[in-house]
């Protein structure tokens, strides 16, 4: 049997798996309080050179505060931040080797595109010829050559976003901080720009740190994602691990769509775990081993696309299958989503999605039909918190 991996592998870049690999950015027991409010709580995190790292969380989770502390706009209440081996304490923002792309872009309205891009280089008192070269390079990189002389108010939202990006890249910072960089763009442009950002990061061989509330954005661009809630890190892992192996109900629920099934552990072995769902009364057999003991209450999280759906009745007493009645069908074009009522008194709803692989469907599933929902041993995750 071939080696199993969680999700697709993007690139061979896993410095975090080597405990001896020196971190490029390190937050060490960092806390930040605003009056009574604790924005960041005793947080430790290592980010590696050339990594594309995403801080993901809802509003007020502390992700932006964490980034602003790295940029120097906020001072940690306690703890230390290191960048490339240097303790950043007491270093003002204008002397830090990081640059930030602001959510509002913060372009200087009284300067042309090229002046905006040259601004940081001028502060470094570089020779004019070098500034011109660097500005030209940035204009080319962001495809803004023909807009060099324009003022920000003469540009579209997408162009402004690229100017902001060019300006923050011009100084070749050790780390580029991106604060919700694509929030103001429409969906199509956002998706395009996500891939552009990835290519840019690969090309420039720089470390990128992105703050976002958009899970798709984080999953697309990042090597690793830190999911934050209430000032703490909930899980730090690759996008596929975050999605396929969430470590908590919070992460499973925050990222993507999930069926959360309450269950009791009935048997634990080296080979896997057997569960008995509390509400629906069906049997689950998972390949996952767990620390939970028989009799413990756990959650079984399974993504809707990993639930197979077919017409008919299931075998009572069989593992990983349950009979239900179709309650709702949502057609999204690329996929369809079915809500099926399952369990003894059809109280609970299980969601299943399937890809619409053909334009024509023979004998389609419809409302109020009996269906059998089934899944593999590897399909779901047992969660204890």
């Amino acid at each position, binding site marked *: 049997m071939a080696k199993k991996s969680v999700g697709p592998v993007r690139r061979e870049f896993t410095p975090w798996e080597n405990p001896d690999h020196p971190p490029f950015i390190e937050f060490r027991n960092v806390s930040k309080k605003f009056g009574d409010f604790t924005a960041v709580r005793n947080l430790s995190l290592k980010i590696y050179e050339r990594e594309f790292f995403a801080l993901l969380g809802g509003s007020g989770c502390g992700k932006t505060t964490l980034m602003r502390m790295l*940029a*120097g*706009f906020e001072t940690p209440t306690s703890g230390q931040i290191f960048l490339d081996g240097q303790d950043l304490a007491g270093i*003002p*923002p*204008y*002397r*830090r080797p*990081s*640059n*930030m792309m*602001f*959510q*509002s872009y*913060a*372009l*200087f*309205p*009284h300067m042309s595109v090229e002046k905006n891009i040259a*601004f*940081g280089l001028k*502060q*470094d008192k570089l020779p004019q010829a070098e500034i011109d070269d660097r500005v030209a390079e940035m204009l080319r990189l962001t495809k803004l050559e023909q807009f060099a002389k324009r003022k920000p*108010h*003469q540009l579209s939202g997408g162009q402004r976003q690229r100017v902001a990006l060019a*300006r*923050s890249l011009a*100084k070749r910072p050790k780390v580029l901080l991106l604060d919700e960089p694509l929030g103001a763009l429409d969906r199509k442009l956002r998706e395009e720009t996500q891939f552009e950002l990835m290519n840019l990061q690969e090309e420039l061989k720089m470390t990128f740190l992105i703050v976002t509330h958009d899970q798709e954005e984080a999953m697309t661009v990042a090597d690793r994602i830190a999911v934050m809630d209430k000032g703490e890190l909930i899980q730090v892992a690759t996008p596929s691990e975050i999605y396929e192996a969430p470590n908590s109900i919070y992460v499973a629920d925050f990222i993507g769509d999930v069926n959360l099934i309450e269950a009791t552990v009935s048997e634990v072995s080296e080979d896997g775990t057997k569960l008995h769902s509390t509400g629906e009364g069906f049997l689950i057999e998972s390949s996952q081993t767990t620390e939970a003991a028989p009799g413990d209450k756990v959650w079984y999280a399974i993504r809707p696309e990993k639930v197979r759906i077919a017409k008919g009745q299931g075998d009572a007493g069989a593992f990983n299958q349950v009979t239900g009645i179709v309650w709702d069908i949502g057609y999204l074009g690329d996929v369809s989503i079915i809500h099926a009522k399952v369990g003894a008194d059809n109280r609970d709803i299980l969601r299943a999605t399937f890809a619409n692989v053909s334009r024509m469907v023979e004998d389609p599933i419809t409302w109020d039909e009996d269906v059998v929902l089934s899944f593999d041993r590897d399909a779901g995750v047992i969660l204890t918190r």
Partner: protein
Amino acid sequence: MDEEVHVAAPVKRSLGGWLLIAMPYLWLLIFFLAPFLIVFKISLSEVAIAIPPYLPTFDFSEGWETFRENLSSFSLENYIWLTEDALYWKSYLSSVIIAATSTVLTLLIGYPIAYGMARSPQSWRPTLLMLVILPFWTSFLIRVYAWIGILKNEGLLNQLLLSLGLIDEPLVILNTNIAVYIGIVYSYLPFLVLPLYASLEKLDGSLLEAAEDLGCPPWKAFWKVTLPLSIPGMIAGCFLVFIPAVGEFVIPDLLGGSDTLMIGKTLWVEFFNNRDWPVSSAVAVILLMILVIPIVLFQNQQQKMAEKNG
């Protein structure tokens, strides 16, 4: 910007719409153009011992012929007179210099005030704004009078400085140009602070953070970002000080000395002491011409700004 052009496509207006647009024009016609034409007409007349003290006066009962005769008697004599007597152009020049100097002083004092207000905690701002407007609750005349009490030889300022031992004998401030500067700066400060505050307050704080992030220390970010972006507010405020200050009469009359030459005072003397309505009208018309130039410049600049922000 292109979108704006589409919006400006011809709109069909109802009668009510036209009336609404006509209102400001009507206002200007009645309260600006008509009085101006009367003053202009008087400036072309001749002084006379009569009521009103100039000739010709129009009496439409005397028929068309007399009207035409009267028209032909108009002359630019009064304007020529203004160029012949050095007093007038010296007054104009001195007024413009005093107004310009006061404007610069007001800007130097008003900018830190407006900046401090714009940077103060959000909850303080309404109070600070109120404090700037507060002096308007007292009559302008009374406030200028109050300065006499402060600036005169035995006034509050001299008493304070003497008691602190900073000076041995009272400073002579009242009835000098310095007192006029103090009076103008004090009186017109709110007119500068308010527009400047408005432009500084809407300045996006993230611009300063961006400047700092790109390696610009805060004091330099002020010069590179805050100052250039507050130029529209500075220009608006300066015009609001300069234009009324040129024609100012009360302040130079009460606080200035006999050698303080300002056109407002000259006009007053011409009108009330010499009872020469035609010459004083000519003085007023020329003053208006002098002021129209900066007003037009100001309007142009405002329009440019509006287009830019649009």
